[in-house]
């Protein structure tokens, strides 16, 4: 059940100011709520919109908090739960499937020591499955914080990718 956040960490003034900037960049227009939430979750290291931020946005726009949570839970790209610094989204759609995304998934699981849906102990990496993000010409592909990394058809390439994120 959703209640006004009390105990949980309040937003720092710095974060409030950053969210204000996000709102401003969208002209404080509530119809841009999806774009606002996308930008807001990038302000948080683990790429999600914490409750406190959701309520803060609701207080700034003429929309009820329920609308914000409706959006947060409806759109796959938005999250109301902490993810990771690098959420690795593995495309599970058909073009990547026929280009061996299963092996890519297993390689990632092996190298990171986690399964899909899990986060590494340090909060750096998370493995997720996602539907097609339009990089079928570079299958098999993953997307990390909006950036696509394709043609990941060898363990070496996957390892290089993970190292480049460190």
């Amino acid at each position, binding site marked *: 059940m959703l209640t006004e956040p009390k105990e949980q960490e309040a937003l720092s003034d710095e974060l409030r100011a950053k969210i204000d900037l996000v709102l401003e960049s969208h002209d404080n227009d509530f119809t841009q709520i*999806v774009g606002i939430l996308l930008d807001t979750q990038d302000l948080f290291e683990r790429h999600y919109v914490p409750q406190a931020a959701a309520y803060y946005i609701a207080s700034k726009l003429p929309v009820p908090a329920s609308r914000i949570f409706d959006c947060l839970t409806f759109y796959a790209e938005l999250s109301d739960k902490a993810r990771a610094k690098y959420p690795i989204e593995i495309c599970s759609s*058909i073009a990547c499937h026929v280009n061996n995304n299963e092996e890519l998934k297993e390689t990632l699981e092996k190298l990171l020591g986690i399964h899909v849906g899990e986060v590494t102990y340090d909060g750096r990496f998370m493995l997720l499955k996602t539907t097609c993000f339009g990089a079928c010409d570079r299958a098999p592909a993953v997307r990390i914080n909006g950036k696509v990394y394709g043609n990941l058809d060898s363990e070496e390439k996957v390892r290089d990718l993970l190292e480049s994120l460190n």
Partner: protein
Amino acid sequence: MGTELHFISANFGKYDTSSIGSYMSIGGFEALRKAVTMDGEDIAKIVAAAKIKGRGGAGYDMGRKWTQARAVKGEHKVVICNADEGEPCTFKDRELIKQDPFNLIEALIIAGWVVGATDAYIYMRAEYACLRQLLLNAIRQAKSYGFLGKNILGKGFDFDIHLYSGAGAYVCGEGTALIRSIEGKAGRPRMKPPFIKVSGLFARPTCVNNVESLSIVPHLLLDQEGVYMHAGTPDSIGTKMVSVAGNVRNPGVFEIPFGTTVRDIVYNLAGGVPEDRQIRLIQFGGASGYIADASILDVPYTYDDLEKAGVNVGTGALLVIDERTSVLDFLTITQDFFSDESCGQCTPCREGNRHMRMLIEKLRRGEADTSDIEKMKKITRIMPMSSLCGLGEGAQHAMIAAMRVFPEVFDVGGAANE
């Protein structure tokens, strides 16, 4: 055969996509200058004469749509550019935006002029966030050059373009869901009527067009020699952007004249199947498209010929799957996609997808009997009939085609297949 014809993609690589000056040096905004000297109805007629069908997949006659949009009475009409191409294996709009953003902006202004709109909204999928700055920059520059804003080109035409982002919801490609998303809500489709053309975004008359459909128009208006009208076939005029992926050597986006054979597309343009493996199936037009086996290779890629062969142009995607993937494996992944992406609002789609997934699993395990196959057939009939939106209507297209093309897979009378 097997060569591309760069008409819609004529500007690709020809100018600096971050500079309006560079775009204008290759003739940018000439089509708009010409358009504002013409009556909107005449432009709609040119589009109708070219028989342009909606390139987002639905294939609705674009000239007719514009004429209807013009006829609707109402203030503050709206044009929407649907850049939410979420059909798996479809990425042609990505290239059109990335390589020719100003042409899309110009096309939208022309569309606004034709239907008498005051605003345009581009709804772009979050997956293309990297293209956001490119488009915002193009809009900003067009504004500073007076192609957007008040009294455009001295014609008393006021028009603005707004960019909105999706956030990873396939269903938002559907018109009413897309509109709700731009209104700042969760993108759940709604019942029609009221139809979008009468009461769409913010309850205003709304005309929705796909990126590719729009992108044709500026080129078409300046096509003195009739290159477009002479390309293709009498029924499928011109060219089409196709995106080819899956098990091909050279996946990518190609612009082909209609009438090119599927073989030319798959083997000459996309390089054929690696290691010369056999083709198991080809899916046309994304996950909601129909499938065919290799016998489709010699069919010319036109609206009519593909339809006769049991598939559709749809979005222009061609997904090639080789012999290593079984039909049931393909159907499982496709079904998983729809089960994931169903918004869950209406029962036929939510439950139909769920049950179909379970039945496919049963068939894979070799435990299905004839009554299960009957249930599957029933679901393929009920879902298109009773679902709220296009997602539920199209979700079983691949299954329907599979039952026709690969009946042996569903023949549970004998030994378990595959």
